[in-house]
């Protein structure tokens, strides 16, 4: 499925002000994301990457610069841009089926129901339609949240540290799942994370953001074939390159990585 | 200056509330001025203020209030301390809980007011009945809150004490009491608030020996609605003070609790 979905961010500046004290959170951010790309934004806590994501989704406004989707300026949230939050934010009083169907206008007609069930199956939760969120594990809940975000076929999907609340083992499993879903849907994905391995494993390009004020420091392409080998030489080389930006690299060229 | 900023902020945040009060006051004055209701039904603000000054300076207000407060003092002290002891016993000892909880929960079901006729039969209509009534009303919130407070001390802390081989007394002193303190203070606040309300109810039902409730009801019976309003305002003001004072203490104590989230 060939979807149009180019995101252009030009000269984005964002300030938060209170009592006359202005904090510049984002400083001249420029980024273009091509349709179908998987981009990760990596940075330390507080560098503004979540603010950036919220601006693109439309949850925050009041910025300087442009954010354009297919050339059109944004006006608040809309269904063309989906988001998966770090805390899955499934409504506890709705079943998984009802939660996933939230994005649809009329979730009771047959077409809609079919789509919901398809997406539940896509994320590997077949059989859990009538369950409630509290009956699911963290990983499963997050998968349901992904299904919910995808069900109305957005052009781009933003993921705000989607795997942050999961344990390390579940996270690795979810990396594979995310990749599979991305390949199948062919959707543009922009993921914010502080996990470098995750970023390199999943992305076509890794965007490195520095903090205070938040700005794009470097964009590192990841031209490796998929699925990627976390212990492979190329993988580790790119990881070194990323870590160097954070002054976290080691002197020895190879390190044992899980 | 920072103070000016704060005042500005306060006004900006609260001006709508002022508008509501002001409108109500204007409405009140207007209705009484143009006699839309008879002066017996709704006295004018000036009359109420005059009555208040009169009752205050003549010492009648002070005397009535004093009587009521002295009744509360006695009833509340008895009920609250008993409630604390029973609640603490139940909280600390499981067998005490098993023994007492069903009975206390059963007796708790009686709405406090329902006790009045029985207490009047048993204790007459003098001070004793009012104090007993208040004591019962103060007892139950205190029992429940003390018990809850002690039981809600996180097990994790108790385990730490075990690991460090704390003796029973030290455990109570350093962990259980501080842990339960916010709930206990909350219980005191509810207890005292209930006592205030109950002293008024009991004075209305056993009309003897003055008291603010007695004053209120006498005023009503002689249709002196201005005096009624004065009494209501006084009753409300005392209730508010109790809540504010104890609420402040409570939030001070909650301070540490919040920071350990």
């Amino acid at each position, binding site marked *: 499925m060939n979807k149009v979905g180019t995101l252009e961010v030009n000269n984005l500046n964002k300030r938060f002000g209170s009592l006359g004290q202005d904090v510049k959170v984002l400083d001249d951010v420029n980024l273009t994301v091509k349709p179908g790309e998987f981009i990760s934004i990596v940075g330390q806590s507080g560098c503004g990457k979540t603010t950036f994501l919220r601006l693109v989704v439309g949850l925050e406004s009041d910025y300087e610069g442009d954010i354009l989707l297919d050339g059109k300026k944004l006006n608040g949230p809309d269904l063309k841009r989906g*988001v998966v939050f770090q805390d899955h934010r499934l409504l506890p009083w709705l079943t998984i089926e009802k939660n996933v169907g939230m994005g649809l206008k009329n979730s009771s007609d047959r077409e809609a129901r079919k789509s919901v069930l398809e997406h539940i199956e896509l994320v590997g939760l077949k059989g859990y339609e009538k369950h409630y969120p509290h009956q699911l594990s963290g990983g499963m809940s997050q998968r349901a949240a992904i299904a919910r975000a995808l069900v109305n076929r957005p052009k781009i999907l933003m993921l705000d540290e989607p795997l942050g609340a999961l344990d390390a083992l579940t996270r690795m499993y979810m990396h594979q799942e995310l990749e599979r879903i991305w390949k199948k849907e062919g959707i543009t994905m922009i993921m914010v994370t502080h996990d470098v391995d995750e970023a390199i494993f999943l992305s076509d390009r890794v965007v490195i953001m520095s903090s205070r004020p938040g700005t794009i420091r470097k964009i590192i392409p990841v031209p490796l074939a998929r699925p990627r080998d976390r212990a492979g030489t190329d993988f580790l080389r790119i990881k070194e390159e990323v870590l160097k930006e954070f002054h976290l690299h080691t002197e020895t060229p190879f390190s044992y990585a899980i | 200056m920072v103070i000016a900023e704060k005042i500005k902020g306060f006004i900006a945040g609260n001006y709508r509330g002022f508008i509501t009060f002001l409108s109500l006051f204007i409405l009140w004055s207007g209705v009484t001025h143009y006699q839309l209701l008879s002066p017996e039904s709704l006295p004018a603000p000036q009359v109420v203020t005059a009555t208040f000054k009169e009752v205050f300076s003549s010492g009648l207000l002070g005397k009535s209030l004093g009587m009521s407060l002295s009744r509360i003092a006695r009833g509340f002290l008895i009920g609250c301390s008993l409630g604390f002891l029973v609640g603490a016993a139940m909280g600390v000892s499981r067998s005490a809980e098993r023994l007492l909880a069903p009975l206390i929960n059963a007796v708790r079901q009686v709405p406090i007011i329902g006790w009045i006729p029985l207490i009047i039969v048993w204790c007459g209509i003098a001070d004793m009945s009012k104090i007993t009534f208040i004591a019962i009303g103060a007892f139950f919130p205190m029992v429940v809150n003390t018990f809850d407070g002690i039981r809600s001390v996180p097990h994790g802390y108790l385990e730490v004490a075990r690991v460090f081989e704390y003796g029973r007394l030290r455990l109570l002193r350093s962990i259980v009491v501080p842990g339960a303190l916010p709930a206990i203070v909350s219980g005191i606040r509810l207890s005292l608030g209930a006592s205030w309300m109950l002293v008024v109810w009991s004075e209305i039902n056993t009309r003897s020996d003055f008291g603010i409730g007695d004053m209120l009801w006498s005023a009503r019976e002689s249709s002196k609605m201005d005096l009624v309003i004065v009494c209501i305002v006084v009753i409300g003001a005392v209730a508010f003070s109790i809540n504010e004072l104890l609420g402040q203490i409570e939030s001070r104590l909650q301070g540490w609790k919040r920071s350990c989230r």
Partner: protein
Amino acid sequence: MKLEQLKNLTFALIIPLVLLIAWDVATRLELVSAQLLPPPRMLFESWLEMQRNGELRDNMEVSLLRVVLGFLLGAGVGFLLGAAMGVWREVELYLSPLFNCVRQVPIVGWLPFLILWLGIDELFKVVFIAVGTLIPVSVKTLEGIKGVPASYLEVARVFRFGWARTLRTVIIPCALPSIVTGLRLGLSEAWMLVVGAELVAASAGIGNVMTIARRLFQTDVVLVGVIVIAVTGYLMDRLLGLLELRLLGWRRANGAH
């Protein structure tokens, strides 16, 4: 499990049984005058008598009717008020200072004016109960609505919910536990106020029965009244508790909020 439950039951019954026996013995040995403390048997007989001649049923009907009417009126108004303040910040800013002030006055304070304006008949009692119910219901409704986490509201924004759908799908279900707590508090307050009102100004109802019995020193009737009031209050609360369970089944397994 069964042995544990049996043990608990035994423990629970010890003190009541001891008290019951002491009570019976005290009255038999005439340690206390029968006027002050009637023997248990007399209590039981009075109760049967009141059942038989319909006195209990008639008066309870009257009281319950007042409670139900007052509760429904108060809960309805309270819910609307709390919801209005919760949903529209402007309304809250205008009304909550006044509301908080009025709240400070214990409900007793309303008696004189209500009696003056509405007499001492049914209307006054129903309104009195309604006012008492209104306060906890609106407070809890407001609390519930304001307590809806911003994260859920953002989900509604992201999916472009209109305000009606947001209310229906996110705000009300999330606020419901608090609202139901408010209803339970309101009901127990209502039940207490009906008794209170009947003690002070009434010609029928369970409170009135107790007042008349008190004046005649019929302690047995008064005690029966106390027990009936307690049991009724308990049953009504249990009923609401069951309703709460049905509405909020999803919450129980989730743990308390």
